[in-house]
């Protein structure tokens, strides 16, 4: 064995021992947010790399789509004008219907749902491992974000913030196998818990075998977890099986397409839980 080999082996052993120590310390030492220090430091550093790469890929994609969009933009413009006219008429009808519903709601004595306060954030990176479904957004504690704040999109619940640095946050998607949310069937108000399975579908557990659940039913957040605001859409029931136990086996197709997310909203102040979601 040459001296170089000995040096290399010693260096490798040194690095291995150092890593072991860091992991051991990380397992015991928690940051102020209750997250291992190692996780916060590595995530914070890598988020900056993701930010830079996202800017580059975004620029390239923007230039390309800009070029593609130029083709046929005139025809699209005319079509959009027609659609706008139709939508303006539809909007007038909807507003009239909305006014009517508002009056009925006031009559029934329901308190209006408070508007949630949100902060828009761009997705700058996907999860580093396909085994964990996470994504990185470009807003962090400097924008007022904190761990466990819910993240939503116009179509439904996206997930929650798990790690925050000054300029970026890691979001655990609802489809992650460690994720979960209190949920209920909008139609029958049957309660349960929606859990991620690491795949593109969710499963809803702890729904009684005699509960009224059908494929196509909308699943919304129940607010029982204290994180996701009540009434926000989670997905639709894809299949219902009786199962062998006292609970049904329910598969839920998420309302959000997690692979197409570009921009999300972080809920900084949730609505009043008692008022949201309508009658139960």
């Amino acid at each position, binding site marked *: 064995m040459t001296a170089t080999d000995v040096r290399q082996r010693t*260096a*490798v052993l040194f*690095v291995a021992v150092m*890593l072991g120590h860091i*992991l051991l310390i*990380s*397992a015991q030492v928690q940051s102020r947010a*209750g*997250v*291992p220090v*190692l*996780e916060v430091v*590595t*995530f914070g550093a*890598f988020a900056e*790399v*993701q930010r830079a*790469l*996202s800017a580059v*890929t975004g620029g390239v994609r923007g230039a390309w789509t800009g070029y593609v969009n130029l083709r046929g933009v005139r025809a699209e413009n005319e079509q959009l004008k027609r659609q706008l006219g139709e939508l303006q008429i539809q909007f007038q009808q909807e507003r009239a219907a909305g006014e009517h519903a508002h009056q009925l709601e006031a009559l029934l004595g329901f308190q209006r749902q408070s508007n949630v306060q949100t902060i828009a954030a761009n997705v700058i*990176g*996907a*999860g*580093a*491992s*396909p*085994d*964990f*479904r*996470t994504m*990185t957004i470009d807003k962090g504690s400097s924008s007022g974000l904190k761990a*466990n704040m819910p993240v939503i999109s116009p179509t439904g619940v996206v997930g*929650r913030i*798990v*790690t925050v640095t000054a300029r970026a946050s*890691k979001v*655990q998607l609802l489809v*992650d*196998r*460690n*994720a*979960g*949310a*209190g949920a209920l069937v909008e139609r029958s108000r049957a309660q349960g*818990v929606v*859990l*991620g*399975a*690491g*795949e*593109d579908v969710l499963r809803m*557990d*702890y729904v009684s075998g005699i509960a009224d659940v059908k494929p196509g039913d909308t699943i919304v957040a129940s607010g*029982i*977890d*204290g*994180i*996701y605001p009540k009434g926000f859409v989670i997905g639709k029931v894809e299949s219902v099986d009786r199962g062998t136990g006292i609970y049904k086996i329910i598969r839920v197709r998420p309302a959000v397409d*997690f*692979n197409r997310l570009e921009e999300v909203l972080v809920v900084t102040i949730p609505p009043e839980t008692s008022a949201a979601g309508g009658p139960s």
Partner: protein
Amino acid sequence: MRAAAIAVFIAIALALQTTLARYLTPGANVIDLVFVAVVYIALTGGPVAGLVAGAIAGLAQDALAATGVSMISIAAGVATARSIIGVGGLAKTVVGFVTGIIGTQFIVARPIPRALVFFTATVGHAMIFLGLYAVLDPGYGGTPYGTIASQAGANALTGVLLFQIGESLPGFVDRRRSMGGGMRINRRLD
């Protein structure tokens, strides 16, 4: 292969995984470019290179993707699950090491054997990873067989493609010779 070169290769794979993978595949969990990089390094550099690559890649992925304890599950009274830093590192270290040994003991120079190695390595990695979680954390979800199969297929395809690209670049044989690891063991066995 030097540890620094391995680290750079893994870093590039990580960056591509987090930025490009979601645009390239229909499901973001279908492809694992970091894992493909580990197996590639193991096959070209031998067991030590595979071990180092697996350890670096696994720990980096664990630290970056970890989600901690599911407080929602606790609040809802469900069995809790948590991500554990080191499980992915261990799984990738084992796979990198074993793949490196396979690369030195067998001739893996054609696309089909290479695809088979990538496919088997992905399945092996999933078995170790999910097996460890099943032991350490009863709250962890079931085994997604469909996802594992599709991931193994996608990784095999990407791995073969990576080799084709690598071999088409000038100086591949010289680079491979200079990587050392596997070649040294081969000579020693001979």
